[in-house]
């Protein structure tokens, strides 16, 4: 599929989910059955859940000392009953940070779409699954939707921070998560496309400025924000809110912004937070 418009239209015309279209296309591509595709994705989701579980418990600091233990802090905060509302947003935040911390600590993760943004989709979907006692089969199909949408971004723009900044990594992950969640909660393919756009528009311009060049700060927190962004975008779309700019044009805008973004803000650790005095001081210490 070349565009989200095509993907959503194909699903609507057959009265199926976006994931039903994507799974068929992927089975054709790999010369295998839809069940094979489903099983493979199911294994990936298992890896995601293992990372959530491991990260929530871990209080390990990374080798650089720049991060670690924040998912555990949130876990205790949630357990204390202080999280606002029913705690969904705190659990999404915790789970996203958990996976990103596992990544920073050289644990096993699923790049989704990249290692730097690996916490958003698992964090968001795992919290939704738990909150709403969703059937596992539906969550895996939602993940397949996320993959199909990510493939459209890769085709038409980029998923790499070095090319497009953080908007291409965490921005894409959040928008993919929003669309996936929208499908999971019964949204129409068009609503999924709107969820995608409503999420991505808030990430445009987001720079990639990792302190010391490490996938830790601000990356881990941007994963948390991306996951909560997905929640807001998904709920807007489910309520009927629409993005007047269609998703494919939003992707094109993301690409353009990425091209115009200064190289110092694209994973080179030469600008933004990476160039802040404290960042330079911390990195001097961690290099010793």
């Amino acid at each position, binding site marked *: 599929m070349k565009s989200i418009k095509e993907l959503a239209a194909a699903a609507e015309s057959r009265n199926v989910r976006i994931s039903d279209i994507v799974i068929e296309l992927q089975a054709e591509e790999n010369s295998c059955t839809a069940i094979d595709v489903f099983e493979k994705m199911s294994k*990936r989701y298992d890896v995601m859940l293992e990372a959530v579980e491991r990260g929530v418990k871990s209080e390990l600091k990374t080798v650089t000392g720049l991060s670690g233990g924040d998912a555990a802090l949130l876990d205790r905060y949630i357990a204390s009953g202080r999280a606002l509302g029913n705690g969904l947003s705190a659990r999404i935040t915790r789970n996203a940070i958990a996976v990103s911390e596992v*990544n920073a600590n050289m644990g*096993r993760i699923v*790049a989704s*779409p990249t290692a730097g943004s690996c916490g958003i*989709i698992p964090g968001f979907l795992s919290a939704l699954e738990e909150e709403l006692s969703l059937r596992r089969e539906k969550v895996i199909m939602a993940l*397949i939707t996320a993959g199909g949408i990510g493939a459209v971004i890769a085709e038409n723009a980029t998923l*790499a921070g070095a090319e497009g900044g953080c908007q291409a990594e965490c921005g894409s992950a959040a928008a993919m998560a929003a669309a996936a969640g929208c499908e999971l909660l019964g949204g129409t393919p068009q609503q999924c496309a709107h969820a995608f756009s409503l999420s991505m528009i808030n990430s445009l311009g987001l720079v990639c400025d990792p302190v010391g060049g490490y996938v830790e700060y601000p990356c881990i927190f941007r994963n948390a924000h991306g996951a909560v962004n997905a929640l807001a975008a998904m709920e807007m779309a489910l309520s009927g809110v629409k993005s007047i700019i269609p998703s494919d044009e939003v992707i094109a805008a993301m690409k353009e912004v990425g091209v115009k973004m200064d190289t110092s803000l694209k994973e080179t650790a030469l600008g933004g937070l990476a160039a802040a005095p404290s960042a330079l001081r911390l990195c001097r210490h961690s290099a010793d």
Partner: protein
Amino acid sequence: MNIFDIIGPVMIGPSSSHTAGAVRMGNLTRELLQDGSTPAGVSIFMHGSFARTAKGHGTDRAIIAGLLGLRPDDDRITGSFEAAEKAGMKFSFTEADLGKVHPNTAQIIATGRHGKKLNLQFSSVGGGKIILNEIDGVKVRYEGRYPTLIVFNEDVPGVVVSVGRIIADEGINIVEMRVYNDENKSNNAVMIINMNKRVDAGFVEKCKSVPEIKKIIYLDKLY
């Protein structure tokens, strides 16, 4: 479209270029050395971002893990230094300026169990993908997108035709072929032949019948 490139790969963090790609550099070195399974010794020269952020990204541990044959999703990567010691593989890391190359570049000089030496330069270009830039001083470009033959031969006329005929007789199409001469005017040349099909060991033996060929290595697709 491949959704498993998007939701995937499964890997050990923190960075696809600095960790997963680094493991693959080690894997490929091990495969190309063809002298016992695990090298006896390796000297690794780290350039640019690889030199600067190796420790925090685990790039050093990842390269060693790859040399030991671990894959990018193996959670034993973090313990690779200790595993190398057990396997009797000596290693050293040195920061180096390798010139005008990609920021994520490493040079790996490996010695096999029977004394064979191999000098390789790799770049990790994002998403865990790597490019092999140099073999024993000869500039090459292997990206791992196709089943590939790497042929080391004497730099004399006619070798391309001889190898091409063997490939054609096998009913294989060449997707892409590049020929590299040593800029230092030695007698060494390297051919990188990307093919549309996998081949077996028997085919590689057939290619060895060409007298000018010194060494031939077959590599499957990397990803």
